[in-house]
């Protein structure tokens, strides 16, 4: 049997719109993943260190507050500073089309907007975790 995907779900910033992440945590767990939820209000640095401590395969980041271009790449940067390159990062939230390219360039994929089905996100996670 394949090993379970370990996933950290987090909102890296001053953003309490947690309806989406709470739904996703349940959906990921129902899809057979091991889910770690950071709780509200971690800094990008804290998110990176939880991810390392918990040895996750993927981090799912969500922001609805417009700070994604600052906060998502910071999580990536903190991982790299610790020499960690084998954790995939996916994003979601209220992310304008043109920001998606910018995030992709930084290695943050998915960047799903409102109305995305849970299946689409789960399939994407399966795809990005295969690489490792």
């Amino acid at each position, binding site marked *: 049997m394949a090993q379970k995907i370990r996933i950290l779900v987090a909102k890296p910033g*001053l953003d309490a719109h947690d*309806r989406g992440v709470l739904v996703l945590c349940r*959906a990921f767990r129902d899809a057979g993943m091991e889910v770690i939820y950071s709780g509200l209000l971690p800094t990008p640095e804290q998110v990176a260190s939880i991810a390392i401590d918990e040895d996750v395969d993927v981090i799912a980041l969500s922001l609805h507050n417009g700070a994604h271009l600052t906060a998502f790449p910071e999580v990536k940067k903190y991982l790299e500073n610790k020499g960690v390159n084998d954790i995939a990062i996916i994003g979601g939230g209220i992310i304008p089309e043109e920001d998606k390219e910018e995030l992709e360039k930084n290695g943050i994929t998915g960047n799903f907007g409102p109305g995305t089905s849970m299946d689409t996100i789960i399939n994407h996670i399966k795809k990005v975790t295969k690489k490792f």
Partner: protein
Amino acid sequence: MLETENYWKNKINQLTKIKEENSKSNENITRWESKVLDPWNKKNANNNDDFSTTSEIDVKTSYSPSDLQGNQDYSMPGEFPYTRGPYPNMYRGKKWTMRMFSGFGTPEDTNNRLKYLIKNGQTGLSIAFDMPTLYGYDADNDRSKGEVGKCGCNISSLEDMEVLFKEIPLNKVSTSMTINAPASILTAMYASVALKNNISLNELRGTVQTDILKEYIAQKEWAYPPKDHMRIVRDMMEYCTKEMPKWNYVSISGYHIREAGSNAAQELAFTLANGFTYLELGQKAGLKVEEFAPRLSFFFNCTMNFFEEIAKFRAARRIWATVLKEKYGVEKGSSLALRFHTQTSGASLTWQQPMNNIVRTAIEALAGVLGGTQSLHTNSYDEAWALPTEQAVKVALRTQQIIAEETGVTQSVDPLGGSYYLEHLTNELEEKAYRYFEKIDELGGVISAIEKGYLQKEIAETSYRSQLDIEKEKEVIVGVNKYAEIEEDKIEILKVDDEAQKIQINRLSDLKRKRDSEKVNEALENLRKTYENNDKNCMYDTIKAVQAYATLQEIVDVGRQVFGEWKEPQIF
């Protein structure tokens, strides 16, 4: 006062008994079902096998007088229990206040938007703040990086507040500020701007949200643990009752509870339960309910399930008046009538085919008006994408104006009152609310239910189920899981760049240089001592700190040191 020990239980028993009696005496409907409906359904199947509302109230094919026997509410508008409206003539006398929530970028940016809205016929101001302000961090704090001015206007000190209300006569407008954890500080700033312009505090009209209970339940923007925040709310109640008699210092909000994923019954019940908690807080502080109850106002969501939403507003008024009278012994009419602001549902807006959102908002706004709202915010069609553009805000405001001035729905009060279906839904929601009140009391009250994570879990459960229904297409969202298109229409959106952050940081560093730092430290030290003494009202020292130009975060940090921070119970 009535017997309050088993109040909720008695209420529930009373309502169930009526229903039981009803089912015995509905000969007419039984005849219709067997002679007309069933034969018809055999030949013409229904297109669905599950007809129900968001609160899981079963919906029958049709309703008749027998559904209301024994529980028909014959009250008229402006009289107890105010089911039909808080005032006798409602919109024939005064239309609802068109209050568009706005705020972004620097105080200058928002000041310009407010003046634009006033010019276009808006009758009340409503300010949105950015995340750092809502959490009590200054623009120059590391945690604020990338967030300054993004979700609303940034306020880091009294100086920002002075800019925000520049050239707006505070004695002529009514201002609503959506701020909770730092509500006492923002109220102190607003009062200080007024005093500086020689406007006396008893002239100030408006509302600060201050509803910290729903923060722990749903919106989750807090600074301290619940009991400490409630102490500050108590101090605001005392202070404002005395000094700012026209200021609504708590807006008890169901809006965020609904947006977080609850259904109509949960929104109704949790919001009113919070309302009772504030009422008891005021009583415990020794205030007379008659003195402060008229200052408690409500804020509800209005989303797509049209009749259930209208019923929710009617049920809210009926429950509030009934419980205040029977359980809390309130006599005076004006203290019993629930008044509320409505906002159409942000969560109902879709990113896909955004123009459809204009239609959704119009339907929701109409339900709010038919439900008898006192003020209304209509969302803009582009808000699933970003903060709204001026053009989109204008369409949203015009939507309200069309309802108010073209449709004729304002002519008669509670025009849907008496509809068998609507009255039935009102009764059903009322009963569901009483069941929740009983449960919350069993858990030891709202704060204890929050600490146990009960209310948060209830909402998360409903929200997850609803998402599963959407995935299974049991719940349809046009343009998303039905009638979807591959190519999306492109729309113009508002971008807030990081310029606001630079401007705010510069203004703060100038301020910190030019203010009298000794005076700041002294004011903060006094506030610390007051915070440490639970019996002392903290509003006076908050005002002094604000006027010494202590920053928002400097003040909140004092609280964080004295009260500690709040970690929410794990609900996942």
